[in-house]
């Protein structure tokens, strides 16, 4: 986090561009900090009075200033910690498509009675909803300002679902910007999001990042779909792990995977992991702006 980014601004009158993405991307990165440090950095780097709301495995910073309300959701904790594993188990792994019961169910049934959503993401949103909505609602009632939602990875999925529910409660959402976020629901759900948020959703996807391709490969799951608008970052010429797999299949017509091919495949997979990290998305954006 260099000092050169101090003074980032959000301009609600401008169309979506990299300056929005850089600001919100920075918010996503800061969302991984603890409550005390986060508040300091949000103030220093983004000019926002921010507070962390943390309920069980779901965390979000809600920041505000005179011109904006920004909600930044934290992604999964590192998979290597106990908390991270719990996080993964409770949210990412339980990827059945459902329409929940209760008030949250009515809110999301508005997307269509056939719309289905990721059950883990849904319960994560439900956990944090009451305190989160109370705070956003309060800030919005004091002064109606543009509301920006953002999140990295799992946080991006939560930002999208949160936006839907805010609209159901008449808090107008200005823009949703996600980085490396997985899919949240079926095709009916994706279609409803497109209708509800025309040119307000921007999903940043690194070409080497595999998370946005999830959870299609799960054994449990039904079919998932993405909502608009996808923005691909990273070099198009770069080989993604998926492309590399296809090439590998072509190279092995003689029936044997030689060690050379196996090594190149493994190095692509290894490259694919860091491309999911928030830091990678931010550096991609910086290099895109320089061009």
């Amino acid at each position: 986090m260099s000092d050169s980014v101090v003074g980032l601004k959000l301009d609600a009158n401008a169309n979506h561009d990299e300056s929005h993405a850089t600001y919100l991307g920075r918010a996503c990165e800061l969302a991984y900090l603890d409550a005390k440090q986060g508040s300091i950095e949000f103030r220093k780097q983004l000019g926002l009075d921010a507070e962390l709301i943390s309920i069980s495995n779901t965390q979000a910073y809600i920041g505000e200033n005179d011109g904006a309300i920004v909600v930044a959701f934290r992604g999964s904790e590192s998979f290597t910690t106990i908390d991270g594993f719990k996080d993964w188990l409770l949210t990412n792994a339980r990827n059945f498509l459902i329409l929940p019961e209760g008030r949250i169910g009515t809110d999301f049934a508005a997307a269509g009675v056939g719309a289905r959503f990721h059950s883990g993401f849904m319960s994560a949103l439900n956990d944090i909803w009451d305190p989160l909505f109370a705070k956003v609602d309060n800030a919005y009632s004091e002064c109606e300002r543009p509301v920006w939602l953002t999140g990295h990875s799992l946080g991006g999925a939560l930002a999208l679902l949160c936006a839907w529910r805010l609209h159901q409660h008449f808090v107008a959402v200005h823009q949703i910007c996600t980085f490396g976020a997985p899919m949240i629901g079926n095709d009916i759900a994706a279609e409803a999001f497109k209708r509800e948020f025309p040119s307000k959703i921007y999903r940043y996807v690194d070409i080497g990042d595999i998370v946005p391709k999830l959870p299609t490969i799960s054994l449990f799951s039904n079919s998932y779909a993405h909502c608009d608008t996808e923005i691909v970052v990273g070099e198009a010429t770069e080989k993604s792990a998926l492309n590399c797999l296809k090439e590998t299949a072509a190279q092995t017509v003689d029936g044997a995977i030689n060690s050379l091919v196996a090594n190149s495949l493994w190095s692509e997979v290894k490259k694919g992991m860091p491309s999911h990290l928030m830091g990678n998305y931010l550096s991609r954006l910086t290099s895109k702006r320089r061009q």
Partner: protein
Amino acid sequence: MFQILEYLFFAGVLLIALAVVLFLVTLVRKRFKRLWIPSFILCVGIVTLISPAIYTRILLSVDLGPRERMVDGEVHISLNGWDGNSYAFLQTRPETVVLQMANADVDDQALQYLRHMKNLRELDLNDSKVTDQGLKVLVELESLEVLRLRSTLITDQGFRDFLMTLPNLKNLDIRETSVSNEVANEWKNAKSGRRILR
């Protein structure tokens, strides 16, 4: 239901692991005539493992409503994108509190079925063919707090005649309608706490 599927999946994993162990044990002891036991367990394991996927992807069809639920003692009915076509059954649900019927086939005629819903608090008519004439029915629904009319044919006239006076109306969705900002602001500023999506 989904929990059962999850257990089935993990049971499949365990069965396959058991089969592999038994295979090795049988081979080491050279009791080749007994190989059918691990083979059988392996087959059962594989079937168990893939059964959740078969169920959710092939057998499970999505329920297309009508979706009727009791939420905190209130009746919520969702018909958005359902596969039915007659809204007449709504006459028999006067106790409805939340009603979602944001469908293209909803017109002023369909709104007549809502006449007796004295408890109706939230009504979703987005993307429907409702006009100013249809709003006339809403005047009698005094509990109405939330009304969605995105992309309908309502005008300033209908807004003034029928919505302005609704006593409890707090939230309005009038995106993609011809209602002017002037009229909308007049309504919004008349009472604090009112919100508009536009």
